[in-house]
């Protein structure tokens, strides 16, 4: 990996200031995507700004929201009694990212900022209607994710926390790649009042997306049977050595049914 300058921010404001001043900077959260990417020389930032000292971890319930600090690790989300009680689907999702060692370092803010098309968290943010809080504004999940590895974040903007409204029912089911545990297809379903949201990760060529046809069918009756005959066009899906676009389209239907069944169980 190419050399870089390491700087540790003590506050969010400090991180923003370093991003403005430093030469070609990148934020370092858990590092579990960034470090492998730097080893492969796919990224070669001149400066890394470490957020681990900026006081961004922690989980709290605020009214009808679960608020998770950006530097909270996957292991902390998975083991949190607050998350387990309020949104068990989110705790379960966090507990199946990567492996135990990865979950000890990887963070929710890092995952969301990277917006890997096969990452799990983006599906949760979209289906639960989460809000991304940053150093300068609040961004609804719908507007945050802007295509594969792209987000609405500005160059000098730092994610501070993510607020998840507590749903009535929710579940996440993924069909993982057996080696990496990334989602070949992952579907997060959430029901709140009469509204149903279905978010699909791993499959879309533009990253995570909402499946509106499924949402309309499930809004009438929240049952796996409602999804029979609801198709997923393969034209907008990824195809690779692990799964063709047609196979992914089929999997979206199967996994969505399982997710709805888990949500009503």
């Amino acid at each position, binding site marked *: 990996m190419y050399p870089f300058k390491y700087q540790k921010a003590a506050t969010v404001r400090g991180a923003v200031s370093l991003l403005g001043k430093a030469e070609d900077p990148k934020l370092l959260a858990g590092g579990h995507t960034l*470090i492998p990417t730097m080893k492969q020389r796919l990224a070669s930032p001149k400066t890394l700004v470490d957020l681990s000292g900026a006081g961004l971890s922690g989980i709290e319930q605020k009214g009808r929201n679960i608020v998770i600090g950006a530097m909270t690790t996957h*292991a902390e989300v998975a083991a949190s009694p607050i998350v387990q009680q309020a949104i068990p689907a989110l705790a379960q999702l966090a507990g199946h990212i*990567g*492996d*135990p*060692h990865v979950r000890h370092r990887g963070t929710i803010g890092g995952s969301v900022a990277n917006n890997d098309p096969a990452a799990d968290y983006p599906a949760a943010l979209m289906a639960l209607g989460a809000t991304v809080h940053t150093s300068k504004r609040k961004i609804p999940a719908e507007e945050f994710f802007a295509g594969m590895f792209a987000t609405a974040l500005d160059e000098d903007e730092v994610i501070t926390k993510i607020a998840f409204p507590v749903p009535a029912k929710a579940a996440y089911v993924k069909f993982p790649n057996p080696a990496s545990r990334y989602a070949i297809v992952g579907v997060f379903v959430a029901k709140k009042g009469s509204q149903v949201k279905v978010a699909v990760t791993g499959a879309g060529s533009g990253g995570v997306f909402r499946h509106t046809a499924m949402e309309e069918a499930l809004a009438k009756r929240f049952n796996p049977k409602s999804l029979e005959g609801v198709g997923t066009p393969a034209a907008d899906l990824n195809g690779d050595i692990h799964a063709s676009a047609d196979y992914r389209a089929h999997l979206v239907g199967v996994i969505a049914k399982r997710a709805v069944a888990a949500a009503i169980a």
Partner: protein
Amino acid sequence: MPTVTLTVNGRSVTADVDARTLLVQMLRENLHLTGTHVGCDTSQCGACVVHVDGKAVKSCTTFAVQCQGTEVVTIEGLAQDGKLHPMQEAFREHHGLQCGFCTPGMIMAAVDIVNRKGAVDEATIREELEGNICRCTGYHNIVKAVEAGAQAMTGKAPARQAAE
């Protein structure tokens, strides 16, 4: 060049390292603790697992500078007063290794599993070992060793899952 000070196996150590130095490189090349291995170098295989502040992490995917001020335990730090740690003893007893390359990471991961979950059953062990790959495919004895090591560490028989 940043100076990193951390505690390794109970001993305070300081080294001047390049910012890009990985924790595993500092352990092996600066401190000559070569028990921690580099297998895949892509955060898949788990041969490099050590404990940082009591949690198992992949030291090939962690910069040494990120560990400033932390407590690191490597495979060399498990045995006490010349006596193997119960998990090491269990790996010996159950022949939980073939070539031995993955063993340090397996044992550090296994101790972390027991620290988090107590006495664990076979299904849980297999799931929890997701991040550790044995190139000899010797998983069966590794799982047996972890189960026995967990019992020795906790003094309890594994909690069986309801379905069994």
